[in-house]
């Protein structure tokens, strides 16, 4: 069944170049735990504005850990990523600076008007 997280990463992979990430280079791994304690992993590589996404379990420069339910909300724009990070709902290890350009990719809240 499709879900917000899968939709987000799949759209990311198919969208073509991301000029807003031109200056970012490195890998991020998202470890997302579901209620059954299973962990789904997404590996994202950023280089010169190109984004590649895979499900490989490999080491990464920046590792992001969260409950899948939390990440679903972030990936759909319902939850702000920085606020979730400050709350401890998202944990970040390694090169935190990589998450800054990446967070630009999260969608806007649907209730916003302009």
């Amino acid at each position, binding site marked *: 069944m499709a879900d917000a997280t899968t939709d987000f990463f799949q759209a990311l992979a198919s969208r073509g170049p991301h000029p807003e990430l*031109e200056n970012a280079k490195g890998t991020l791994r998202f470890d997302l735990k579901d209620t059954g304690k299973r962990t789904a992993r997404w590996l994202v590589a950023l280089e010169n504005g190109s984004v590649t996404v895979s499900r490989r379990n490999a080491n990464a420069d920046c590792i992001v850990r969260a409950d899948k339910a939390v990440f679903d909300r972030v990936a759909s724009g319902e939850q702000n990523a*920085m*606020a979730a990070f*400050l709350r*401890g*709902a998202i*944990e970040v290890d390694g090169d935190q*600076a990589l998450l800054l*350009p990446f967070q630009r990719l999260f969608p*806007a809240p649907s209730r916003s008007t302009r």
Partner: protein
Amino acid sequence: MSDGLVQILDGNTFVVSDSRGDIEASSTDPTGLFSFDTRFLSTWILTVNGERLNPLSVDDLQYFETRFFLVPGTGTVYVDAKLSVIRERAVGDGFHEELTILSHDEEPVELTVRVEAASDFADLFEVKDALEKKGRYSARVEKRKLLLGYERDTYRRLTTISASAAAEVDEEGLTFTVRIKPHGEWTTDLDVVTATGVGGRYVRPKYERGQKGARPKMGRSLERWLQDAPRLESDSDSLKATYRRSLIDLAALRFSPPVAGRGSSLPAAGLPWFMTMFGRDSILTSLQALPFTPELAATTLLALGDWQGSRTDDFRDEDPGRILHEMRYGELTAFEERPHSPYYGAADATPLYVVLLDEYERWSGDRRLVRELEREARAALNWIDEYADLQGNGYISYQRRNEQTGLENQCWKDSWDSISYRDGRIPGFPRATCELQGYAYDAKIRGARLAREIWKDSAYADQLERQAADLKRRFNRDFWVEDGEYFALALDNEGKQVDALTSNNGHLLWSGIVDKSKAKAVARHLLGPRLFSGWGVRTLAEGEGRYNPIGYHVGTVWPFDTSFIAWGLRRYGFKQEAAVLAGGILDAAELFEGRLPEAFGGYERGVTKYPVQYPTACSPQAWSTGAPLLLMRTMLGLEPLGDHLVVDPSLPESVGLLALLDIPGRWGRVDAFARGRAQLEEPAGRRARVRRRLA
């Protein structure tokens, strides 16, 4: 310091205590140990044999360390000083306190020393607004450490307290049973460590016992910071003192944004409550400090670029390309009860971002950064036309979309009554304040230069210049108040002039949007009796409906405001007028012992003889600290021209000699000299000379 409170800080970690070194906070009392906008310690009380101590003296060693000299007993006329107590405290990730008790007794003494500790984990916003907490507190003893915790869902904050000497630790503090030989001493270290996040990672304090070179985490030590800044020579001792104070305060205000992870620092807005990234304050302070510490500008540009808006989010007043207003890290932000993660509700920071990028390159020659930030600069320029023109009339306007916790006035005069008509009425929203249009004009002109010279996009440069010329033409028609010969404060939601006379006119000169034919009338107002108090330029002119010499943005003088006005006067060739303003503010600085407050009363100088400080909790404040620096630039008439620095001085009466040595920039290091009118009868062109040296 105000109210006998002692502040020390390192980045956004700071301690505010009383003059004994004790902390006794209530929900609304602003003392404590704060870090990341959270209070980690709200009680920290030292007693000896159950008695509080009495302060003899406090030494502010540096902005990050303090020493308290204390004796037992309070409130008595005669102090029986058989004991002396010294607390030496340095801020790190929490703080490190060295507690020493000296006995002056000929007999051995036995003492019970107790430190009481507790934390309310208040968000800075809660300290200001007295809000209720929603989470759970804990206090437990583990391996001779006291752990104070706070938990709300996944949000966790932890304070760990430990001592080097043997102590009985309970949930409310530490007790030491101390025996001291005749004329002997006893000592212990106390470590208070703050931790955030799940599980609360344990962080060692940065300052260890006996460590001589304890330094804040800012990349460079204070001495190095002072050495690297240009040297000032002057016959004015007060100017020298003000300059040194400004450099030290600017060092204290440096802030390394967490998460950004760039490892370098930018100017935070003010100490202690505004030790965070602010778009407007960080940009304007970086501009003021460019001839002195250009690296602040580079970090500001990078960090604000990292956080540039990328989506439409009403709660945060975020748009694509918009530069943030304020970032916060506390509980209310974490739970989205406040929008500061970050909040974007400023209408001026985005055009000013482009202004800073261009001005930085003119000084530093750092084309690499201009290329690296091309996308951010273009997005900022795009924001002006695509997102800021709320009324479709070709002007930047603002109106908050977050009606609960957003900011009403998104310009630097952000209090509720700051924008008014002559008769005191307050306009509706959206509001298009005049300085925003000036900044937009300047951003387009400067953006065009960057596009042409560095991004090699002449079509874009032409387009920006056409837009700028059109904006200037319309602005000089629509904002000009004919019967008063000045620019209106704003256009209201019907496009009508909000016609009060304000200091904003000076910012218009700085931006270059003012038609040459109108500049003289504007300058006359700025130096005239309704706006100029003798110390500086009033925010709102005397005689306007809402004028109040101690109204926050409706009559007080803001030193930073006057410093940019002096820059504006220089831009239009009013050298002596700029020098008069510089003289007024520097005279005021002398009376404030070199540290200019955020604002002071707009009373006529001849009446009060002394600038009356506006009551405010924040000092030093970044852009007040930067004001004397910018005024030194305007007095010397420093202006980069290609790879050279032009010097064209004009000094106020009170300064006879001004020499600034080793000014850093694309020229390497150069010196600038100026002599005042009183001392020298030389043709103007010969008063200045630039000595070039190999860098």
